[in-house]
């Protein structure tokens, strides 16, 4: 894999070599959760002495945590990521995947799991799974549930803030009428907060990502569905019922294709990733988004055109949103955004021709920098808010 060979390329000088080695060790610990130093040497390809030095350095500076343990009957140093103040969990439930992450209060992810889900998954099963994963992951970090300060659950459906339930029937069928927060609280006995995933992604972009320091931002999450998180004057706009930003269900094409929300011609039924894939591959139904993006990058004209068409459609609709909200920046995330400029370029063109400002005043359209983790980081951030940073520590 080219990823590996790129990492192995020898960097220019001693300092950057050391930096690269540090990154390599941190990546390995993040991936495995907990490793002994000997295993770290194997996993990173570094010499045991280098590993030992870097681990010592990183644990002195509070990044890693070491504890004595045994491996094959010998004494060993077990290395985990430090999580000084405590842990929070983020759960991101999308249409076909669930991601469960544990993070510290600084929203540094220390353990991470991704689970493929069935189409039309059901709340009880998946919340069970999430619960078991969280317990498992907390244990793998040599921690206990008492240290878990809060849990943020974000779902790819609008959430009514007052009831904590999915606000619109039909969008995630297996989840309607389920009090998600109460269910999770019952299982884990920790504070739980529930939010729409596009809103969570918007919060994450605002705090940790491409929207830092901006006050008026539009965050689009483009995947199978299309969601928007609206930040106006530095605050998240949820709307009266929590349905604000359900961008994918803006009716766009009269007599268009049916949408899972029960109406026809919605944006996501025309330009969402699922719609694009179905349009290309109606027969076998096995084309995946990765296939599409990889194919397009390799120059498949049909795929390129399909992505560009979707980009133009979303761009035009975004233009209308911009006229309403006048954002300073638009951040595009979600699985489909992995197509990068193949999608964003046409979006930008369509946006420029529809938005009502001076030519040089068009909001800049950028790709998310959070690499697909925006929603789960948002969940983590919400969990931190819900838990409240402990006041006793001087740093808080």
């Amino acid at each position, binding site marked *: *894999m*080219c*990823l*590996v060979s790129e990492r192995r390329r020898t960097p220019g000088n001693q300092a950057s070599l050391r930096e690269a080695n540090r990154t390599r060790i941190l990546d390995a610990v993040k*991936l*495995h*959760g907990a*490793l*002994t130093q*000997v*295993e770290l040497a*194997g*996993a990173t*390809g570094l010499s045991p002495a280098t590993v030992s030095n870097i681990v010592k350095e990183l644990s002195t500076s509070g990044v890693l945590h070491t504890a004595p343990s045994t491996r*094959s009957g010998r004494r060993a140093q077990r290395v985990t990521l430090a999580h000084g103040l405590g842990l929070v969990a983020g759960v991101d439930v999308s249409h*076909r995947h669930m991601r469960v992450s544990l993070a510290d209060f600084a929203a540094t992810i220390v353990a991470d*799991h*991704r*689970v*493929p*889900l*069935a*189409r*039309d998954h059901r709340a009880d*099963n998946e919340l069970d*799974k999430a619960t*078991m*994963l969280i317990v*498992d*992951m907390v244990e793998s970090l040599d921690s206990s549930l008492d240290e878990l300060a809060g849990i943020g659950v974000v779902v790819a459906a609008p959430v009514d803030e007052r009831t904590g339930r999915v606000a619109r029937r039909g969008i995630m069928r297996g989840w309607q009428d389920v009090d998600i927060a109460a269910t999770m609280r019952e299982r884990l006995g920790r504070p739980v907060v529930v939010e729409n995933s596009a809103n969570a992604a918007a919060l994450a972009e605002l705090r940790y990502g491409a929207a830092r320091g901006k006050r008026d931002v539009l965050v689009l999450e483009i995947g199978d569905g299309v969601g928007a998180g609206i930040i106006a004057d530095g605050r998240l706009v949820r709307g009266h019922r929590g349905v604000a930003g359900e961008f994918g269900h803006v009716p766009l094409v009269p007599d268009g294709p049916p949408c899972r929300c029960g109406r026809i011609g919605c944006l996501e039924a025309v330009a969402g990733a699922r719609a694009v894939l179905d349009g290309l591959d109606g027969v*076998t*139904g*096995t*084309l*995946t988004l*990765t*296939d599409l*993006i*990889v194919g397009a*990058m*390799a120059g498949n004209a049909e795929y390129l055109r399909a992505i560009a068409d979707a980009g133009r459609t979303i761009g035009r609709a975004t233009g209308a949103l911009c006229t309403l909200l006048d954002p300073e920046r638009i951040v595009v995330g979600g699985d489909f955004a*992995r197509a990068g400029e193949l999608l964003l370029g046409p979006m930008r063109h369509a946006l420029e021709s529809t938005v009502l400002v001076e030519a040089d005043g068009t909001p800049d359209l950028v790709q998310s920098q959070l*690499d697909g983790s925006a929603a789960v980081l948002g969940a983590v951030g919400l969990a931190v808010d819900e838990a409240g940073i402990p006041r006793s520590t001087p740093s808080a």
Partner: protein
Amino acid sequence: MTSTQGLAERPVRPSEPVMSLRGITKRFGAVQALSGVDFDINAGEVVALVGDNGAGKSTFVKILSGVYTPDEGTITYDGERVTIPSPAAAQELGISSVFQDLALADNLDVVANLFLGREIGRFALDEEEMERRSWELLGQLSARIPSVRIPIASLSGGQRQTVAIARSLIGDPKVVILDEPTAALGVAQTAEVLNLVERLRERGLGVVLISHNLADVQAVADRVAVLRLGRNNGTFRMKDVTYEQIIAAITGATDNAVTRRASSRGAKEQSDGK
């Protein structure tokens, strides 16, 4: 992770099925285990094979992997008629299987298991090369194996499954058969294995997944083929089938005169409409 990066050299998806079985029949004395089973495997697709106990899943998988030879029926692999007289022949063709018991050597380390019987090195073993390749392979599968130099006995169930699946990829197969890969695994390990199945599909392999766990099947499969009493009882695309419909096909709740008439009428209407 830039998950799209490592896949660039992936072969283009062919439209023909990579493996196609027609009219497979197998008898054990008086027991008719399989009668006239049809089955297709496409590249870059996960096909789940489900059925009740005794439906013929294991027999069918053993035919796919060359343990049994069918009494009747044809097997087309890569566009050519083939016979699979032995497991070695299946390996040779590019059909690789991971059975439920995994067949790993508990006392050997990960590298030794991966290359068991296919060691690199002419006279002495080239341990360095094998270790390098092991990491490369496990890296491609984003596997969470802490070390390749620990004996299999000290790995978790999910990690053993990962090693077994990685080993099945050594000969560069086109079809991988996974028999109950998530049985007896915890939730985190199940997630690992399911992610692994997705990665196999992204590599352009045809994956046959035999599982009793319908939640897992629904999570990763593109198609599901149902066997009942040794016969095909429907092949569904995952996108347009519900849990209840699959259960009905497995248990035979669909298999009566009324539903058969309804389904044949439905199929006719569908073919007229298209």
